[in-house]
């Protein structure tokens, strides 16, 4: 075992940050919780929990319709989240920010509406070999329905997209390029700007899955020039069940509606319904008001702590963990891209990831093991899955040390 000293942390006051996350005070199996499953979902700070409680205790009402005080307050808080989200991803206008139930919902919305209207027989949709199932299955369903073709940008041994192959996949029939910004299983940060420019040159529309990236990277949809961007609040210290879909105005306006119901309509008669303007056109029914409101608190919190500082802290954790883990005999890091965000995925010779997961849990450490909902990617590496440690702003170098020690113990028990 090489001796590595943790870098002096002068970026963030992690101790102070930890105090704001109530769950981090608890114990698991008699030990203080070490939560390293942040790519699955992050823990919630008190301000987010307060926002939820305050809404339900102070001004719970349906939005956009009542004229009473509570409805006004709830509507204002709900719409304030849209403004914050617009700034968070640098969207040109608030009308281009649509609330969804999360990333998966956003992709399904685009595949079902834009897809059905624009994809025909023989058309081609490109995804990558490192997609989460949620950015594969909606397109597969669409291809099946329309007799279209799904093409895949391969992943190199180091976990990066093979852009020369991508170039050869682009053609006159390419209608959509839908790709993940940051891989949940490998941590690879994809060069989305370049990939989008290449897609646009071929006349294709693009969608970026920002489920993992939105918490770690600065998101600027205008600079990326993506046509669609989707993300989830719960991976960003916010509540579950809410996310956003950003779309370029012209495309959203031309897109058929998704679900029918209240809020998305302008006028309804039994002969004909006319639809509401953006963004409400895509927000049928009573939305997830409480969680949308609390989502603002999460974005404000991230902004206040400082995304850049957090990203640097997480980068140091990744580098420290990678170096320490690599020193363990038989351990191999999966995903060695030059640009990674907050994820260390690994396998160990002769040991199944699930066995490691059980033994780490017994030592109070939460990691993810398995295929990470990315079976095609695991097949590409011929592995059943990996052990994944993923970091957030509240993780410490000491926790990495404890992970390594717990892992050594697990390996010893299993061998």
């Amino acid at each position, binding site marked *: 075992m090489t001796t590595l000293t943790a870098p002096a942390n002068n970026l963030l006051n992690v101790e102070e940050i930890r105090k704001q996350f109530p769950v981090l005070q608890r114990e698991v*199996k008699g030990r203080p919780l070490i939560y390293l499953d942040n790519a699955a979902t992050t823990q919630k700070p008190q301000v987010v929990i307060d926002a939820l409680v305050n809404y339900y205790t102070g001004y719970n009402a349906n939005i956009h319709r009542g004229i009473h005080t509570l409805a006004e307050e709830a509507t204002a808080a709900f719409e304030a989240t849209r403004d914050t989200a617009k700034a968070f991803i640098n969207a040109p206008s608030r009308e281009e920010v649509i609330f969804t139930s999360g990333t998966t919902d956003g992709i399904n919305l685009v595949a079902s509406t834009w897809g059905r209207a624009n994809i025909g027989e023989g058309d081609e949709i490109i995804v990558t070999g490192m997609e989460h199932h949620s950015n594969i299955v909606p397109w597969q369903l669409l291809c099946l329905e329309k007799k279209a073709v799904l093409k895949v940008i391969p992943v190199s041994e180091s976990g990066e997209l093979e852009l020369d192959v991508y170039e050869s996949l682009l053609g006159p029939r390419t209608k959509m390029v839908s790709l993940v910004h940051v891989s949940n299983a490998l941590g690879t940060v994809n060069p989305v700007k370049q990939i989008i420019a290449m897609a646009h040159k071929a006349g294709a529309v693009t969608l970026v899955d920002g489920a993992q990236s939105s918490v770690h990277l600065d998101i600027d949809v205008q600079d990326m020039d993506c046509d669609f961007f989707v993300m989830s609040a719960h991976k960003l210290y916010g509540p579950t069940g809410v996310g956003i879909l950003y779309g370029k105005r012209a495309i959203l306006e031309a897109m058929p509606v998704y679900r029918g119901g209240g809020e998305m309509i302008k006028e309804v008669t039994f002969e004909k319904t006319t639809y509401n303007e953006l963004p409400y056109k895509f927000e049928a029914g009573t939305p997830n008001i409480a969680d949308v409101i609390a989502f603002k608190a999460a974005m404000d919190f991230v902004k206040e702590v400082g995304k850049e500082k957090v990203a640097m802290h997480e980068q140091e954790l990744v580098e420290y963990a990678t170096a320490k883990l690599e020193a363990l005999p038989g351990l191999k890091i999966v995903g060695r891209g030059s640009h990674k965000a907050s994820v260390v995925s690994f396998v160990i010779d002769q040991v*199944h*990831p*699930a*066995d490691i*997961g*059980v*033994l780490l*849990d*017994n030592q109070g450490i939460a990691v993810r*093991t*398995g*295929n990470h909902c990315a079976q095609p990617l695991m097949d590409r590496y011929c592995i*059943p*899955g990996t052990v994944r440690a993923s970091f957030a702003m509240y993780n410490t170098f000491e926790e990495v040390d404890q992970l390594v020690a717990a892992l050594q113990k697990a390996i010893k*028990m*299993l061998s």
Partner: protein
Amino acid sequence: MSETLNIRDTEKEIVEEFGLFDTWEEKYEYIIDLGKKLPALADEFKVEENMVKGCQSTVWLTASYRDGRVFFQADSNTVIVKGLISMLIRVLSGHRPDEILEAQLDFLKEIGMTTHLAQTRSNGLLAMLRQMKNFALAFKVKNEM
């Protein structure tokens, strides 16, 4: 196969054995050891139709029926699940279909293995238990026909 003990007795026996362990390490070392000792299933049985797939571990399960009793053979690609399987086989194998169908299998909870029975996608153990009972039911129905 212990023919003298009924299912509940074997369960109690296992619970008593686990009572001797003071730490989680001892418990898991025992389970890992059981997993390693369970004979591997021959490759001819490791086929798709015998597979009980979880998103973390894969279990292969087959059963045979002799003299009114069901005998199980199983394997897994993860050693802890294999250890748990070994205990399930010890408890259930060699019993009559009715006994297997009625078995509550509380011992898994009593020895603190509830994590492995959680309703998650993560392991094939719960699915395997269901499959063991399905086998018992199938043999019972076939027998009564």
